[in-house]
């Protein structure tokens, strides 16, 4: 009985699954299993779709902030040009006034006014968020609505006074 135990302990000194003869087949099995493991399919998580049509209102304010800022930058030359001519001389002033009288230019200026006012209102909202004002979800969504409404209303009012 005692001999039997010793024999058993000696044969167990190197566990069977660690013997070289056993490792190689089990490694092969493992590699085969890994090769068969399917790669995780790309999930369409709610946050994965960043199309503007799928954004909540605060996201729309954000992307419009970016687009309006880029638009204002791209059209900066026109604003500076008109500012330049309007202040250089009476003739320049008349020329700038004539340019601003064109329907197409008025349309562009209205677009720029809206871009400016949206950028302005959204910027103030971001400054408030930076100061931790209105960062709760409901408040943030509410302020997004305010940004869109106020900038559009101001565009109509100021556009009527300054452009049309």
């Amino acid at each position, binding site marked *: 009985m005692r001999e039997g135990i010793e024999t058993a302990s000696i044969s167990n000194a190197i566990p069977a699954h660690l013997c070289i003869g056993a490792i190689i087949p089990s490694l092969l099995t493992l590699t085969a299993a890994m090769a068969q493991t399917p790669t995780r399919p790309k999930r369409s998580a709610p946050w994965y779709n960043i199309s503007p049509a799928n954004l909540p209102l605060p996201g729309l304010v954000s992307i419009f902030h*970016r687009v309006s*800022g*880029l638009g*204002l*930058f791209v059209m*900066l*030359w026109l604003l*500076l040009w008109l*500012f*330049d001519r*309007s*202040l*250089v*001389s*009476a003739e320049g*002033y*008349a020329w700038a006034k004539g340019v601003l009288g064109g329907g197409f230019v008025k349309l562009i200026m209205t677009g720029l006014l809206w871009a*400016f006012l949206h950028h*302005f209102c959204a*910027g*103030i909202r971001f*400054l408030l968020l*930076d100061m931790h004002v209105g960062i709760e979800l409901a408040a943030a969504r509410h302020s997004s609505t305010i940004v869109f409404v106020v900038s559009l209303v101001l565009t109509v009012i*100021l556009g009527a*006074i*300054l452009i049309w």
Partner: protein
Amino acid sequence: MVNRILVGAHYGFGSWLAQRVTAAVMAVYSVLLLIVLLCVQPADYAAWHGVFNPEWMRMATMLFWLSLCYHAWIGVRDIIMDYVKPAAARLIAHVVVIVALIGCAGWALQILWRA
């Protein structure tokens, strides 16, 4: 437990702050200019020129245009960093924007203080 402090050189904070300070300058000036325009209602060249003639108005307008150029640099730089991935294209875009904005800043100064 490894106590790693992951901070950069704080360049980002500088840009973040500059963007907000320049925004505040432009916001104040915009409201100021709107009030002036609604009060004066310049109808001809003399009145329009008179709006920008006082030294304080030139200074305020200068602050506005310089703030705008700095603000636009940070904003457009961020847009380029987000969407323009190839290094060469990004470099070209950055250079074009920098040159354009320095040009605009100089142009604005010239408009305000030419004889």
